[in-house]
């Protein structure tokens, strides 16, 4: 029974995604809405992403230094930092922070719109609510997540450099040359951006789906918000494994 429910939910989610894609015509109103959503889900997520990135860079450098120094391989610290950040940590951690900040807000917003008859009002005005409220949020997440991940990486590497060079005394030249030598523009940076865009889409779609179909009550909105964070986070982790298995050979 639970299996059948799960399959049904996946089917409904897929149809919801198709409806959203069909409603993504780049009209003037859509673009105006998109800009507003980019600000809401993207720009407003910047502080948490920047702070998160900096501390991940600091702790990764610290632990990496302690482990590598045991084997006399501290020169590989920037390689460790670069590869782990670009390939896995930045897309996944940015997505998880994004889900906590913007995904929960999308689910709560749509849940409240359902509870306060705003979605019903759109339907009765012959306005497709999925095209009006879901599509701009989805595309805003797809567009902003790679930028947020890039900022996460920048802050993490800057903080890692500070920890490694200024605090732990690693040579500045070897830090940067190690990083340049190990990180590839497409294989690492490009794939990181691709993963982030996919995770942004997953986060927004899951959050919008559960918010849009929330029970029109306060409890329903609260349940939808929790479900959005839990389901989107798990899906991001699952898709991260799938994408890593496919893209890093």
């Amino acid at each position, binding site marked *: 029974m639970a299996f059948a429910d799960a399959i049904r939910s996946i089917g409904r989610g897929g149809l919801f995604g198709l409806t959203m894609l069909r409603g993504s015509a780049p009209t003037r*109103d859509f673009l105006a809405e998109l800009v507003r959503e980019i600000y809401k889900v993207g720009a407003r997520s910047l502080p948490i992403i920047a702070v998160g990135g900096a501390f991940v860079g600091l702790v990764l450098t610290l632990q990496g230094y302690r482990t590598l120094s045991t084997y006399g391989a501290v020169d590989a610290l920037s390689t460790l930092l670069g590869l782990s950040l670009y390939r896995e940590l930045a897309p996944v951690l940015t997505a998880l922070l994004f889900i906590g900040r913007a995904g929960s807000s999308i689910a709560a917003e749509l849940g409240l*719109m359902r509870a*306060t*008859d*705003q979605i*019903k*009002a*759109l*339907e*009765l*005005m*012959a*306005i*497709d609510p999925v095209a009006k409220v879901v599509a701009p949020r989805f595309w805003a997440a797809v567009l902003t997540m790679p930028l947020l991940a890039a900022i996460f990486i920048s802050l993490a590497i800057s903080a890692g450099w500070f920890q490694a060079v200024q605090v732990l005394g690693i040579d500045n030249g070897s830090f940067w040359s190690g990083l340049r030598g190990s990180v590839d523009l497409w294989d690492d940076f490009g794939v990181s951006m691709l993963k982030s865009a996919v995770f942004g889409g997953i986060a927004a779609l899951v959050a919008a789906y559960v918010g849009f179909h929330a029970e029109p009550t306060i409890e329903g909105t609260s349940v939808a918000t929790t479900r959005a964070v839990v389901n989107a986070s798990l899906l991001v982790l699952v898709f991260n494994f799938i994408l890593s298995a496919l893209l890093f050979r």
Partner: protein
Amino acid sequence: MTDAAIPAVRLQAARLDRGGRTILSGLDLVVPTGGITAVLGPSGSGKSTLLAALTGELPVASGALEVFGNPIPRSARALLEMRKGLGVLLQGNGLLTDLTVAENVALPLRTHTRLPEPVLQALVRMKLHAVGLLAAADAWPRELSGGMARRVALARALALDPPLMLYDEPLTGLDPIASGVITALIQRLNRTLGLTSIIVSHHVSETLPICDHAVVIANGRIVFAGTPDDLQSTIDPLVRQFLDGQPDGPIPFDAPVRAYGEAAA
């Protein structure tokens, strides 16, 4: 334009089900074009279910339902098209909270017309002027009182000049002055714009004076259809219980018994 000979709404032996339960059955009703029809009944009698059927949210389980001679379409696209000819004032107003009053009223015009911006803005001002809220054009919905929010929702519902207006409990939650403003507006707009209006309400004393036809729903069926005067003078005990607000009578106090687990359906 609508042909006056064609009724605005026609229900023939219609049955409406929700959650696997029959809410209303044996519905035979003709709402003439033009004028105001009040659909009255106690809370939980199925008035909102009837409204949901008129807007196409709820398909009829059996029988026929026509709006201006056309059956309610089933496909999503055709339904959206039909709804362009309907204005609906929801009980909860449904104003979009991230848009100002003027943007809310402009929303259906922006979506469904290709009017130049100055014309669109002029139309929005006209609609807001009609409900007496031109001065609140730049306000946010959260800054409005209940009565003002309902007037904005009314202006938005009228934005596309629909031939049929549906009002879902338009007086609920309003003080007597705001109620008076809304009923006067409904009457004035209906007359000046030549609309057909259907008011779903349980506010008998406020609604009857402005309506041309009255329908009473109770116990899952239509128990009265006629003029307001006929309604006032009826001796039907079921209708009288509702009109006079008597706690005892043919309309049961207790909710109907459901099978265990049905409430969750």
